[in-house]
């Protein structure tokens, strides 16, 4: 009940924030713009619409998670609204979890609406509903939940601007760290290879959640990949949330 109250309050806060609508507007514009882009491209127009549409969902979803998530906890401390909440009979982890779930709910609603626009645009062109697109969208959600957790983690100890930079760096590193795998294969065994291996194990690999290319191009994917990716997302998010809680539980609100 307490977690639900905090989550719903966070949802209300996010929904009444103008930045959300700005991002929503741009995302919707990008999805619709994909149709114009398709007209200018040689090749399969439907694939372009799907590809650009899914990429827009992922990118604008990440921006929403980062720009709103990084301010969530920091604003509560900065504006001292946290005083009256933490002094109530509530554990600090309940507060943090409520904040996380509230932002998750916001993303589900906003990205859900964008997905409907996207699916409608695809439907107008193909006149058929493609359930596989839902799988790609589901993995975008898993990625966004992880980014939300990361944004909240940074928000526990630094300002929104710094947190946004850190979270954005996490997003970019996460989408390029697969390059390390190639590097490991090319390096001979030694210090550099061990270092690359260590980094690859430690750094997030957000490409694990990217099934867009396979789905857009109709390639087959073994179900175990879905399973492992979802599991990876779940445990990584849990790890980040536990880390955030460790920092938050002993923090003085001065």
């Amino acid at each position: 009940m307490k977690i639900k109250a905090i989550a719903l309050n966070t949802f209300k806060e996010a929904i009444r924030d103008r930045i959300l609508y700005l991002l929503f507007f741009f995302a919707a514009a990008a999805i619709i713009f994909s149709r114009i882009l398709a007209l200018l491209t040689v090749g399969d127009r439907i694939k372009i619409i799907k590809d650009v549409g899914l990429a827009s969902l992922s990118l604008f979803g990440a921006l929403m998670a980062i720009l709103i998530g990084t301010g969530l906890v920091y604003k509560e401390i900065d504006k001292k609204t946290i005083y009256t909440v933490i002094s109530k009979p509530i554990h600090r982890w309940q507060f943090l979890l409520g904040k996380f779930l509230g932002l998750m709910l916001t993303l589900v609603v906003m990205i859900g609406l964008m997905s409907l626009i996207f699916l409608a645009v695809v439907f107008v062109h193909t006149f058929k509903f493609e359930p596989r697109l839902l799988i790609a969208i589901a993995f975008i959600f898993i990625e966004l939940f992880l980014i939300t957790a990361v944004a909240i983690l940074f928000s526990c100890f630094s300002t929104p601007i710094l947190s946004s930079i850190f979270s954005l760096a996490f997003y970019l590193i996460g989408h390029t760290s697969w390059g390390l795998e190639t590097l490991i294969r090319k390096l001979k065994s030694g210090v550099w290879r061990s270092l690359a291996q260590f980094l690859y194990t430690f750094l997030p690999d957000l490409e694990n959640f990217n099934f867009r290319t396979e789905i857009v191009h109709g390639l087959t994917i073994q179900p175990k990949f879905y399973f492992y990716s979802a599991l990876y997302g779940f445990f990584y998010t849990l790890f980040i949330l536990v880390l955030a809680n460790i920092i938050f539980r002993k923090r003085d609100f001065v």
Partner: protein
Amino acid sequence: MVEETTSLEVLRVENLYKSYKSGFIPRRFPVLKGISFSVHQGEIFGYLGPNGAGKTTTLKCILGLIFPDSGEIKLFGQPHLFLKAKEKVGYLPENPYFYEYLTAREFLNFYAQLFPRERMADKNKINELLHLVGLEKAADLQLRKFSKGMLQRIGLAQALINDPELVFLDEPLGGLDPIGRKELRDIIVNLKEKGKTVFLCSHILQDIEMICDRVAIIVGGRLVAQGALTDLISEKVLFTEITLSGLPRETLEGLGEFVSVRGDRALIKVFDENKLSQILNLVREKKGKIYSLVPRTETLEDIFVDMVKQR
């Protein structure tokens, strides 16, 4: 250090130390240097001190917003971070900042949900609280449109949402106009009549003096005095202020200290009872006129200023 008592303790603080780190190369600055006191059930306890003395830091330690370096805090006989203990507590912070995107009703409803079912306020209780703090008409207005005084009132309603046994009020009179202050004092006294305990931090000493049963004075992170107001303040007359007219100044020379002279009328401070009698006799003889005669006993402010100066 804590005085012995037979009445039920709702709060006990013992040997509380707290310091903050500050600066590029962090250095520790002690804020609380061994604070000990206890608050008893059903009393209004005043916690006084100049700015930066450590009042709010003490409160934050008690409420679990910051962690003390050492010391023990017990609420209702339990460690202060136990949720069971926190359920019975209400808190209004200094200069309260609230979720400005919520309406007053949504705001109270949100806080109500942070308590277990048996302490959760329902719609009627929320309406009752809005009535108590005089905000019924603003119930559906977003808090961003509230004035400072209105925020203070909704903050108080929030502090009372769980029908608490012990209420912490940090500078509750700040930002209120004289009528608002009187209303708030009435609410506090009313809480005491219902058997609740009130812990009041305030700079406005007159208000504390008017309603508090016991006080503790903190200066520079240490308690310098605590006890019942009647024990701290002596009833001895310090001096008498007398406003009179009809007497030439020369006749009064040496009998008292002239505070102000306006036309024929003079305000004189008289420190000696014999001299006061002499003045009264003179007024009678010379057919003068007395406008006011006020004996000044020691006030909390005198004690407070003395204590702060001594440190």
